């Protein structure tokens, strides 16, 4: 790396647990320029968002509910850690109950 080099970095700078079971994820894309002292100065930062719930809950034509666990294997490890901590068995049970209410 040299002075003036441009680099791109992605970080998950805001992961929020909302309403007990929803997890709102903000992915920040940072464009940085290397300075003469080796530090990197952030030039721009843009955001991309998505949200996660513990299940995808669907009611069929017989009014039977199916709760399919959300696959978080493709999420960043920081997101997985928060999801796993937030989605306790009690929270999962409450989520299902709320959907079926």
């Amino acid at each position, binding site marked *: 790396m040299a002075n003036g080099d441009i680099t791109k970095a992605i970080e998950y700078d805001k992961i929020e647990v*909302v*309403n007990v*079971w*929803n997890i*709102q994820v*903000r992915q920040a894309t940072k464009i940085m320029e290397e300075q003469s002292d080796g530090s990197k100065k952030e030039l721009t930062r*843009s*955001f*991309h*968002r*998505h*949200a*996660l*719930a513990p299940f*995808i*809950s*669907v*009611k069929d*034509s017989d009014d039977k509910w*199916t709760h*399919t666990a959300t696959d978080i294997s493709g999420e960043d490890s920081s997101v997985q850690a928060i999801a796993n901590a937030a989605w306790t068995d009690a929270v999962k049970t409450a989520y299902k109950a*709320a*959907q079926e209410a």
Partner: protein
Amino acid sequence: MPYVGNMNTTFTTLTSSDANITDDLTVTDDASVGGDLTLTGDLSANGAPFTISNTSNNNNIDIKTTSSGSLVHAVKIHSGGTLEAKQGLLVGGDVTANLLDDYEEGTHNPTDSSGASLTFSTFTGAYTKIGNVVCFQAKVIYPSTSNSSEARISLPFVVGAPHANYYPSGKNDANGNTSASLTLGVTGQSYAIFKNDSGGSTATNANLSGANINIALTYKTT
């Protein structure tokens, strides 16, 4: 009480008791005040505005307060002129209901939230969040599908109360089999659902097979 008159020199610290400055004061080096600093009188007595300047290139002006025993940034004026107030702005009053505490622009590409794992051929979107209001514009093109699950697409933020069956805006533009409009789902969910325009029942993915959905919706989040 020491009296400090017209000063136009370099000094570092006033450490004794009160200092009374009655004329122009120019500080050309670091200065610290060991006690309270109070500015009184007419700051524009000579017709000039009261100006706070930072002539050090690319440096900010920080205004700090003490919260829970720690000095924190209250307001920062960036060198380029933007004002940073991370805790928000109280507008029109000083209670929580007057607090504008968030603004954010970003992207959210809607995905299928029906559980059918559909892949939209086009799915792009952008949002602006102002306080607890989300403005979201997106485009979604459904694949050819016979799936009978309730049609749902993801939203960038959780839906706040009041909730279900509100029709913000967003309509199948008739490329699909059924004319359907987008409604908010349930409070606490981060998806919207489609309802058939004929009768208001929820539309299935099959109803929207091949549909070209243009979305422009505004909704309240938490």
